[in-house]
Structures are given as C-alpha cells and as structure tokens.
C-alpha cells in the first residue's frame, strides 16, 4: 500500500461512497474519490471496472442509488450535492464531460459543434474569445470549421471533442479515453495539450487505458477494480507499486 | 403428483366449460348469446395475434386483412349455388360448389396462412415499427382489392344473406383449438426459439435458430387463426363487407394483446373478454345519449395508461398458476 497522500484542503469534487446500478448490474459498489482544485487525476483499471459508469454518474447521465457527489465550482462558493442533478444543471455548474467515442455531432459543422459546447453561455464576446483561443491550440479546427464534423479524422475529432468541452468554460474537464484509436504521435501531442489546458487552471479527471501515459500526465491516480477503488496515491507512488506495474504497466517502467 | 392434480383441475374446468356452453345455448337469449359468440371470436383473434406479436415480437397490424381473406373465402365457398348464380360472376367450378362449413373454414384459414407466407417473405425483413407500417399497408391494400373486385366480392356492398352457420359450439371449439395450439407452441422448443427472436435476434441466430423461417411461420400461424375467425365472424353476422376489417379493428386486437400482456395467452384471453364486455356496456349508452365513440375513447385511454404505468400488460408474458385458459372460459363469462 502506498502512503496515502492527504487530499488537498479544498477539494473541487468529492465523491462519497456512491453505489450505481446499470439495469440490474451492480456496477459501482461504494466508490469514493477526491479531485483537488487544478489537479489532474487519472482513473485506471481494466475493462468493466466501472470507470465510464463513474464518469457518467458525475455528469448526471446516471443516478447513484446511494452516496453523495459534492462539487464546489470555485473556492468561494458552497459545496453542492450534484448526485441528483440533471446533466444540464451540471454543465451549468462547470463540469464538462467529453465521453468515450468522442460523441461529436457528425452532421453538424465543426463550427456548430464548437458553438454548441457554449450552449448555455450568453456573452457572445467571451464565447468568441474562447473560440479563437481553442483555434490557436487546434488550428486544424479553424481550417475545417465549415466541414461536417463527421468528415474529420479520428485525431481531429478528438481535438474537436476536447475543444467543444472547453467551450463551456468548465472548471472541471472529464475525459473518457481520449487516446482511444489514435496513433502514438497524435496521443503525444494530445497529452501535451491537456497539460497545457491544466496549467491554465482547468481541473482534469481522466480515464485512460494507456496507464503509462496517464500516470505520466496526472498528479494523482485511482485504480478501480470491479466497482471499487483498490488503490490510490500520487502518480509516482502508483507507478512504483508492484501490483500496478504488473497489472497495468506491463511490468516495465 | 402436482401434475395429476393440475390435470384433474384442467379436466374439471373443461367439463364445466362444456356444461356452461351447453346450458348457455339453451338458457340465454339471442342477444346475450351473440355477445358470447363475439367474445369467443375476439379471443381467437387476440390469442392468434399473440403468437405473431407476443411470442415472436413481429408487430403486425395486418390481422384484419387475414381475417378478411379467411372470411371471404369461407363465405364464397358456403354460398348457396342458387345465390351465386344470381349475385356473383365466378368461374363455373366455383359457381357449382357449395361446401359444408368445416372444410370451407379450413380452406379460408389456409388461404389466409398462404397469403401470410407470400406477404411475409418480402415484408418480414423489416423491423419494429416499419413492419407495423408495412402490415398496415397490407391491410389497406386488401381492403382496396376486396372493394374493387366486384364480380366476386360485390365490392363495398359485401356479401349478405350468408347462412347462419356459426353457433356457440363452433366458436368455442375453435377457441379451445386456438388456445391449445398456442399453448403447445409457447411451451415447445419452437416457442422458445420465437421468444429468443423477440428478445435478441442476433443471439437467436447464433443459437442456430432459423430466423426467417420462424418469423414467417409465426405470421402464418397467426394468420390461419385470423382466417378462421373471419369465417366464423361472416357466418355469425351472416354478412361480410370490406369495411368490417378496418384499421380500428386491428387497433382493438392490438390493444387486447398489449393490455393482456404481450406473450401471455391468459392475458389475451382475459383482455378479449374485457373488451367485449366494455363494448357492450357502452353500446346502449352511445345509442341512448347520442355520444358515439365513447367506447373507443375509453379503449384508447386504457391502452395509453397501461403503456405508461404497466408496459408489460396485466399478465406480463406469464400464465397464472395451474389454470389453463380454455377451462377458465366457464368462469369468466
């Protein structure tokens, strides 16, 4: 067991013992975790461990049967229990979820996809600013803004999905398998961008199959197995853990 | 031990049913008898649609179309030779033929089943509500064809003056046969493959079930009994017109199956009786107070409430306890 790092004083997201069912399957069997402000936290675990379910519960697509999800958008505001809130409300509070398989709207144009990310925002100038800064990070999106999003390549679609998620100006960005189906060079630059986004003040919760890269990027990580957190700690601690090495890092570090 | 007790109960109920049918035929007046007859025909319709719709999940609105085919074929076959010469222009071999009821009914049912196979082979490639729409199209095409084939069907006038051949024994014998066949299918390996198709087509195929043949068979078996019901109907009303086999009828049968619980024979049985009773209760109300349509409105309302609050119907797809439907007949009417 690695030494448990004390979570930062004011956590942004605090999940307290949630239990989630999908149909009759008992998927999350009491999961607790914390994400500190401006942190990058990675969730690793095998297929079927419940990572995606956890993310979908945070963003309100699924409802926990039991347990609390406390979210504090900024350090001044009150903690809010979002476990019963609708996805719309949760987006409004500042959580943006970029799901597995990207979920871009393939029949909308690239520009429309980005604009729909800012659906709840009113201030047009701010939206335009964000749009411009996203286009600076992903110039290809600017080039293709009038194309149907379905015509983009996999890597471009991932950029679009992340850009779209950022258009809501989230405090917390949730990413589900951003590297899925992408070539190693694209993944490399993608993770570069994520760390950049984080350095601008966006907190990131990340699910990733590629545990090596995830631990490289994240400050802390949790290991999920069959619906429970079995291990957590700083990335360094987990990367040094023998079990983690065997199970997720292929024994080479 | 339990098997024999169940069998005893089945036998007892069966005898009670026969006794009831016999005494009803003697004691009750024409009006009540006709209601009981119509209820029986609805039971046949609901249970046969349940084979197609409930067991296999093929959502068909074409049931009255098959019923019309069975009804017209039976009616033309039993039509007296003298009347045929007067009203119809049919080929000589048909004009000189006057069949007894049973073979005419069976041929009617067979024609309906054959049509189901011919229609089913192309159309059963469709799924879900597209299949529903296509079968509705089939129903309307049948109606248009019957309406316009005046030399044989007398068009919108229909055939009237049919012999009143249908009576309680005919109807309930067919109810028993329908229930029995449907029961046998449900609890055979064939029925289980139908159920597998309803639940998950891909998985069913992986288990080696011939998807297409089973689907066509389910449609054809349902159509056969719909055809029989059509023949019984024609000779109960002693008239047959294309307008009788409308989409509203299709809807009513679907309501019975859905309300009873798709897949449940008992459910279809009970819902058919419930439907007949409700219609009869509301008929005098409609006529006396001039508020036509209230029965239909109520039916639609029940349907929508069931879909919202109990989407699997009253009985789900189960059969209750030891009772088997044919024997419940006596108790329920």
């Amino acid at each position, binding site marked *: 067991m690695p030494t448990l790092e004390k979570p930062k004083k004011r956590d942004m997201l605090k999940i307290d013992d949630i239990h989630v069912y999908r149909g009759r399957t008992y998927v999350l069997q009491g999961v607790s975790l914390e994400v500190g402000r401006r942190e990058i936290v990675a969730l690793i675990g095998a297929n079927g461990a419940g990572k995606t379910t956890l993310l979908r519960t945070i*963003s309100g697509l699924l409802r926990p049967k039991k347990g609390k999800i406390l979210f504090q958008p900024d350090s001044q505001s009150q903690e809010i229990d979002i476990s019963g809130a609708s996805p719309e409300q949760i*987006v409004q509070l500042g959580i943006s979820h970029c799901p597995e398989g990207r979920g871009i*709207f393939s029949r909308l144009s690239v520009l429309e996809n980005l604009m729909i990310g800012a659906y709840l925002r009113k201030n047009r100038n701010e939206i335009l600013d964000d749009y411009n800064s996203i286009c600076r990070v992903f110039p290809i999106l600017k080039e293709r803004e009038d194309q149907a999003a379905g015509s983009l390549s996999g890597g471009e679609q991932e950029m679009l999905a992340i850009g779209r998620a950022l258009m809501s100006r989230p405090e917390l960005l949730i990413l589900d398998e951003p590297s899925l189906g992408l070539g190693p060079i694209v993944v490399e630059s993608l993770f570069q961008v994520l760390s950049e986004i984080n350095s601008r003040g966006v907190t990131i919760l990340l699910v990733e199959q590629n545990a090596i890269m995830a631990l490289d990027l994240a400050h802390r990580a949790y290991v999920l197995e069959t619906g429970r957190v079995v291990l957590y700690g700083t990335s360094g601690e987990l990367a040094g853990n023998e079990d983690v090495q065997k199970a997720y890092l292929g024994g080479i570090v | 031990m339990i098997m024999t007790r169940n069998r005893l109960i089945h036998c007892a109920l069966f005898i009670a049913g026969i006794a009831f049918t016999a005494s009803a035929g003697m004691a009750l007046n024409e009006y009540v008898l006709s209601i009981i007859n119509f209820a029986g025909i609805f039971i046949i319709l609901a249970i046969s649609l349940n084979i197609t719709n409930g067991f296999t999940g093929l959502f068909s609105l074409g049931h009255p179309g098959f019923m019309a085919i069975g009804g017209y074929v039976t009616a033309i076959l039993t039509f007296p030779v003298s009347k045929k010469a007067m009203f119809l222009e049919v080929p000589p071999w048909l004009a000189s033929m006057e069949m007894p009821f049973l073979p005419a009914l069976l041929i009617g049912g067979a024609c309906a089943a054959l049509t189901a196979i011919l229609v089913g082979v192309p159309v059963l490639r469709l799924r879900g509500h*597209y299949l529903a729409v*296509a079968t509705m199209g089939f129903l309307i*095409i049948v109606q248009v064809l019957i309406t316009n084939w005046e030399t044989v069907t007398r068009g919108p006038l229909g055939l009237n003056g049919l012999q009143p051949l249908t009576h309680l024994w005919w109807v309930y014998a067919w109810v028993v046969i329908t229930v029995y066949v449907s029961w046998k299918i449900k609890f055979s390996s064939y029925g289980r493959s139908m159920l597998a198709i309803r639940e998950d087509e891909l998985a069913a195929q992986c288990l080696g079930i011939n998807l297409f043949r089973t689907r066509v068979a389910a449609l054809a078996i349902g159509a056969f009994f719909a055809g029989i019901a059509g023949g019984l109907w024609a000779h109960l009303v002693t008239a047959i017109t294309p307008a009788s086999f409308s989409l509203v009828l299709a809807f009513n049968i679907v309501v019975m199956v859905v309300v009873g619980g798709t897949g449940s024979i008992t459910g279809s049985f009970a819902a058919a009786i419930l439907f007949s009773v409700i219609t009869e209760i509301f008929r005098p109300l409609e006529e006396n107070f001039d508020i036509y349509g209230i029965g239909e409105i109520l039916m639609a309302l029940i349907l929508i409430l069931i879909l919202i609050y109990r989407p699997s119907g009253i009985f789900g797809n189960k059969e209750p306890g030891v009772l088997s439907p044919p024997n419940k007949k006596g108790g329920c009417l």
Partner: protein
Amino acid sequence: MSGGYIAQQIVNGLVLGSMYALVAIGFSMIYGIIRLINFAHGDIVMIGAFVTLGLFQTLGIPFPVVALAVLTAGGIIGIMIERGTFRPIRGAPQVTGFIASLGISIMLQNLGVMFLTAQPRNFSFPDYLQRVIKIGAVTFRTIDAVIMISAFCLMALLMFLVHRTKLGMAMRATAENIDMARLMGININRTILSAFAMGSALAGIAGLMWGGKFGQIDPLLGFVPGLKSFVAAVIGGVGSIPGAILGGYILGLSEVLFVGLLPPVYSAFRDAFVFVTLILILLILPNGIFGKRIEDRP
C-alpha cells in the same frame, strides 16, 4: 391528352404535394428527434380544419388571424400529446410509442365524432379565395395559389429556424445523439417539445388548407392525409426535413398523375398504389432519398 391537360395535372399535384409536404415535415421532425412514428399526426390536420371552421365561419374572424390561430392551436395540441403520452413512455421500445400514438389517434377521432358528430360539414371560404384564375390552359382558384405560396414560405421559415438558430442547432444535435446533447447543457425536454410544436403547427395549417381545397370536413379526415404524408416522409427519408418536402411533392404529383393519366378504372386503386409504393420503398430504399442511415435507439 394535351400539354395543357398535363400542365393542369401538375398544378393540381403541386397543390396536393404542398399539403403532404407540410404534414410530412412533422412526421420527419418527430421521428428524427425521438425515433417515433407519431400516428396521431394526421389527426392534427383534422383539428386544424375544425379550428378554422369554428373561428372563420362561425365567429367571422379575419383570415390571416385565423391562420395564425390555427398554427398556434396545432402547436398546442402537439405539446399536449408529447407531455401527456410520449414523455412518460420515453425510453420504451419504439413499437410502444407507435401503439400509443395509434391510441391517441383513435381517441382524437372519436372525441371529434362525439363532440362534432360524424356528419361532414361544408367548409367554404369567402369569394376572394374562391376566385378562378386562368393562365393559359391551366385554371386554379386563389386558394390553390395561397396553399402553394404559404406552404413554400412556411417551409422556408422552418428551414431557417432549424439551420440558423440556436434552438434549431439544439434540435439537430438532439436528433443525432440525445445523451451528448444533454452533456452540452441542452434541455432535451424542451427541444423535443419544440419539434412536436413546430411539426404539429404545420399539420394544423395543412388542415386549414385541406378544408379550403376540398370544401368538406369530418372528424375522420385526418387519416388519409396522415398516412400519405407518412409515405411521403418515408420516400424522402424519415428524419430529413428536405426529404419530407421532396417526398411530399413527389407523392402529390405521382398520385394526381396516376389518377389523371391512367384509365378511370384504376383510380379506385389509388390508395393501394400509395401503399404498394410505401412497402416497395421500405424494402428497396429503406433510408429514402435523403435519409442517412439512422441507427435505432433501444
């Protein structure tokens, strides 16, 4: 058979097609957004026709005001149907929604019979809408021109709403992926409701046109245009609005030409013709002309 005769048939086909197109749009919008074939859609045409009759002929309210009121009434009915029935069963298998819509259709028709009686009523527009116009060999009434032009304007307005406004963008996003739309912060209940309201408003106004064109209305009148417009939507590709419009005109033209150019013996088979076409299209070209492959939702 002269060129003038054919031109006349084409004009008739365009008038009929305009009405089919307006109704078909609603089918397509609703199908596109929640994968529901709303069988009750045709009965909104009937309601639109009766609202017109009531406001215009009984109360003598001026025509443009009536047209707006009918649009509103159609929209309100659509909203009530969605809230009352389709929202509670959302997530159920598609066929459940279809049966429920059949139930609503039967209910609306019979409510019509109960309160309005099944007796057909005459529906007459004032003289300025009945005036006969003659251009070359083609004659038509003012109402025919009104139908064609206003249908065109309404469709243009709808295309603008769907493609150039935020609500339209939200509707298209919801149609493509409901969960994703929710993650964008879109209130899908409101988007779905808007689709119902817009589609039903167009069906309502089609009822006004139907009454004006054929001069007689009864509570069961919605059935046939409903079914045929559904066929039109399938021809164009259910879910696609341009497809529904194109399908409406194709069906209107081919139906009129079928009746007008073939010997009269066949005209009795026009409904059968429509459905044979439907089944063939479902089998051969299941996604219609413009339809993209729409994945089924569970």
